[in-house]
């Protein structure tokens, strides 16, 4: 962080939607020079009517610069997911949609392209403000500079932390203002797909007086729960408060009823204690939210206000009892994810963030590790509402680089601001249960690394003493060291621990299942969990987790497919005698997707998720069939991969071959039937860890598995051979959608047979037509290799499916979609935007 910044620790959380009643009306004056008029109020949406140009531009910060030829866009926006050039017809072309075989990021960023981009926006303030005007960027990837009317406001390097600027000194009151933003995503700066540009929301705060609630200045702490109530402490920081001002804090329940309220004289910081009677507690199963309203007042006049969701919960950790939420023992059924939204790239639309959380919850996850950086307020808000616990993390590097141009070069200068931005902007989310200060940090076992560990952990404890600090440790956790009384965390002075973890309250293990029990014996007071694990280990991990209180859960790498780290979850065909050889690590072009997720890039369940469903009790029985390999070949999954199996009994060309059928079940016996003939019946022993294999000769028909426990049937599953592709089916995920520019509608595209069953191996080129008040912003499949654009009206299905994502144009109405493909019956669907 450099330049003339607003103190980011001192401005109130402007959560998405908060105070959004205060409006901006787009100017419809000059068609080529859109501008907005802002009124008084905090948290005004500032996403619409920007101009954008990809590439270097000379002098674009000047107010008079002619941006008439620039593209008009609305935020959030990610230029790295946009096509580099028209779809090539050459199948060997080095550029396919947004992917370039020669991209500097290579496999790490999924062959996408960064570079430089510029944004400009015109706006005016009517009436001219007497107080203060600030702009808040939720996230810009990365290395941004912002100018207002030609004045440089500052620069911000980190691509994931929010930042704000005070516009007041340079505003042209009552006249047009021009905001210019330069964004640079240069070199090799990320190990995964980052996206490029202003990919999260922008907000404007127009305050009537200088006195105001500080940004992120409201803090909520639940101190006690019991005796028929909850004791809550609310702190409010006020800037330029002056005399005669008061702070009102009012808590409403989910039905809007006031359940607690208090007013105090304003000061730089005020603290109010409140008792909420008969509270409904927040938990993953019942994520009840209250709302805290904060007002800064002069008499009856409200000068500033903020709304902060409040969840009443107490989370405790110890090695004897494990983790408990409100006293209830709870394991972290977790998954790691990166921040991209699949076909949308990094663009953090609220609807996309919410859908991601809902997909995770539907698969039994109760926790997520947003890796390895602060996620959007919309994502965290969705976690609050849906009950998904969060390990909030920042820093994939400290001072030593993992990539040549990554954040390590800026760490010394920026870490304190970026850490504070994470903690202070997100601390009121009840879903966040701990903070992580780093992932697989290279220098963590050196003396300077140990000191950095202490400085980061201690800073977090100073900012938020209510949550524990962790980090994700791979490999060797270091030699034994003993901390002094001055330095140790409370209660651990003089107790030897390993260098990587000596100042951590909870220890995250990356891929160290083999060490869990031996480490517990060495360090019996250590509370540990898997911050990353291989999908293939799911059953073994949970077998140990469920009988070990000191092991509080696990986060698989990953819960969802993501762009970048291309092919780490791929499987490869090798000769049968090479089946035991080291597993391939990274895919090469044209792989662009990590492909290690339980859920694919468009939201569909993948094979490892079926196994997880059984391990977590979401399902009692699941079945997958290994894709037949050419004779003499076997499929060899990468470390993060899974066998190439599908829930399918449609394998044309494999007639008569013996196919491997994998059964996942919580039962103790399984029967496998083919076309009503009993093929085999097998016992499932504890050592099988809920998984057994059968061999079945392929013939079209119905393959059926029946699971039993203690002689009683508990579940059955059927896979039927489907017919040839016959039609396209379009299915909106919701029949109704919102009409605002921030609203998205998802429409599933499937190739189906004559009976309406999805043809899982169908790869068909589908063309979409859309009529009505929505635009197509993404269309593509979960195919992990680069096959072309994510934004054109044509896409090829993969595994029989594709996904279309529509963005509302800003007004209500009926949207009609039609999909066609050669030789198939066309599909159609409609949805209403209100």
């Amino acid at each position, binding site marked *: 962080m450099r330049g003339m910044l607003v103190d980011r620790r001192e401005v109130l959380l402007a959560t998405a939607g908060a105070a959004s009643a205060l409006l901006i009306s787009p100017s419809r004056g000059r068609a080529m020079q859109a501008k907005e008029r802002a009124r008084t109020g905090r948290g005004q949406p500032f996403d619409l009517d920007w101009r954008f140009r990809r590439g270097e531009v000379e002098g674009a910060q000047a107010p008079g610069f002619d941006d008439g030829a620039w593209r008009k866009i609305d935020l959030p926006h990610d230029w790295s997911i946009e096509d580099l050039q028209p779809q090539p017809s050459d199948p060997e072309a080095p550029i396919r949609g947004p992917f370039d075989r020669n991209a500097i990021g290579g496999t790490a960023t999924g062959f996408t392209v960064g570079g430089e981009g510029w944004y400009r926006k015109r706006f005016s303030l009517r009436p001219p403000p007497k107080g203060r005007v600030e702009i808040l960027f939720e996230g810009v990837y990365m290395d941004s500079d912002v100018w207002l009317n030609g004045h440089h406001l500052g620069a911000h390097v980190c691509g994931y932390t929010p930042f704000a600027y005070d516009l007041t000194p340079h505003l042209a009151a009552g006249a047009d203002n021009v905001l210019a933003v330069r964004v640079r995503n240069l070199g090799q700066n990320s190990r995964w797909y980052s996206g490029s540009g202003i990919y999260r929301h922008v907000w404007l705060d127009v305050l009537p007086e200088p006195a105001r609630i500080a940004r992120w200045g409201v803090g909520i*702490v*639940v*101190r*006690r*729960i*019991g*005796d028929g109530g909850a004791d809550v402490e609310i702190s409010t920081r006020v800037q330029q408060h002056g005399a005669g001002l008061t702070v009102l804090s009012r808590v409403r329940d989910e039905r809007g009823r006031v359940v607690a309220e208090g007013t105090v004289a304003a000061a730089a910081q005020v603290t109010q204690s409140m008792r909420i009677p008969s509270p409904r507690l927040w938990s993953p199963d019942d994520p009840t939210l209250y709302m805290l309203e904060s007002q800064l007042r002069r008499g009856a006049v409200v000068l500033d206000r903020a709304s902060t969701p409040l969840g009443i919960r*107490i*989370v*405790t*950790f110890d090695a004897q009892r494990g983790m408990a939420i*409100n*006293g209830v023992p709870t394991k972290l059924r977790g998954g790691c994810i990166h921040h991209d939204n699949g076909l949308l790239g990094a663009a953090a639309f609220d609807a996309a963030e919410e859908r991601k959380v809902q997909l995770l919850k539907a698969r039994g996850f109760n926790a997520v590790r947003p890796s390895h950086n602060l996620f959007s307020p919309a994502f965290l808000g969705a976690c609050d509402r849906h009950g998904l616990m969060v390990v909030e993390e920042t820093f994939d590097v400290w001072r*030593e*680089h993992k990539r040549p141009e990554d954040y390590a070069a800026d760490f010394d200068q920026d870490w304190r601001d970026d850490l504070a931005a994470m903690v202070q902007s997100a601390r009121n989310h009840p879903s966040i249960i701990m903070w992580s200060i780093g992932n*697989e940090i*290279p*220098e*963590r*076992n*050196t*003396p300077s690394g*140990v*000191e950095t560990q*202490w*400085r980061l952990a*201690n*800073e977090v*404890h*100073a900012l938020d*003493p*209510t*949550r*524990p600090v962790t980090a994700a*440790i*791979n*490999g*060797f956790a*270091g*030699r*034994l*060291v*003993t*901390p*002094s*009384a*001055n*330095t*140790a*965390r*409370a209660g651990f002075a003089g107790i*030897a621990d390993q*260098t*990587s973890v*000596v100042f951590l309250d909870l220890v995250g293990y990356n891929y*160290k299942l083999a060490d869990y029990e031996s480490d517990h014996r060495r360090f019996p007071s250590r509370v540990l969990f898997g911050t990353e694990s291989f999908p293939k280990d799911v059953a073994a991990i949970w077998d140990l987790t469920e009988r070990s209180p000191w092991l509080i859960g696990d986060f698989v790498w990953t819960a969802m497919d993501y762009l970048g780290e291309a092919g780490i979850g791929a499987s490869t065909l090798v000769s049968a005698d090479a089946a035991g*050889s*080291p*597993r391939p690590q990274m895919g090469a072009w044209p792989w662009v997707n990590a492909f290690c997720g339980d859920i694919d890039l468009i939201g569909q369940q993948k094979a490892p998720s079926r196994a997880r469903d059984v391990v977590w009790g979401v399902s009692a029985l699941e079945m997958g069939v290994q894709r037949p390999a050419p004779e003499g070949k076997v499929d060899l999954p990468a*470390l993060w991969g899974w066998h190439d199996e599908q829930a399918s009994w449609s394998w044309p060309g494999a007639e008569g071959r013996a196919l491997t059928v994998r059964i996942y079940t919580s039962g103790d016996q399984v029967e496998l039937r083919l076309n009503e003939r009993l093929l085999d019946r097998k016992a499932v022993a504890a050592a099988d860890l809920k998984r057994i294999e059968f061999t079945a000769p392929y013939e079209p028909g119905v393959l059926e598995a029946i699971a039993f426990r203690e002689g009683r049937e508990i579940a059955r599953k059927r896979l039927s051979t489907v017919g040839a592709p016959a039609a396209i089916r379009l299915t909106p995920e919701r029949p109704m959608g919102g009409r605002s520019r921030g609203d998205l509608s998802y429409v599933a595209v499937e190739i189906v047979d004559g009976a309406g069953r999805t043809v899982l191996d169908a790869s068909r080129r589908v063309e979409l037509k859309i009529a009505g008040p929505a635009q197509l912003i993404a269309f593509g499949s979960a195919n992990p290799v680069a096959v072309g654009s994510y934004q054109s009206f044509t896409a090829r299905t993969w595994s029989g499916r594709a996904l279309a994502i529509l963005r509302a144009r800003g007004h209500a109405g009926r949207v009609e979609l039609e999909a066609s493909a050669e030789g198939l019956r066309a599909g159609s669907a409609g949805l209403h935007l209100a």
Partner: protein
Amino acid sequence: MLIAPCYPPAVAFEQPVSAPYVLSLETASLADLMSVPAAWAIVLRHLPSLQPIVSAPMMKPHLGNFTVHSLAAFMPGAKPEVYAAIDEELARLPQAAEPRR
């Protein structure tokens, strides 16, 4: 009554004191072993497949964070009896062979 836990900040930083140290495959990182030429020669003599692994650019930042054990999945020749033989030879090195930090 449920009471919220508290994780207060500490007073000041003082470098923690290192415990006595024995060079072995379990207690030494790759960086530790590589910083003692005699030790590294022993390791490579038994596990020559380690050399290309530690030379990989992606691995270099992490040499302090991996032991030989933690790379077993990538070394076909890594077996308990090989580890034992290496540890036996490492134990015979003079005590001055303390790795650099």
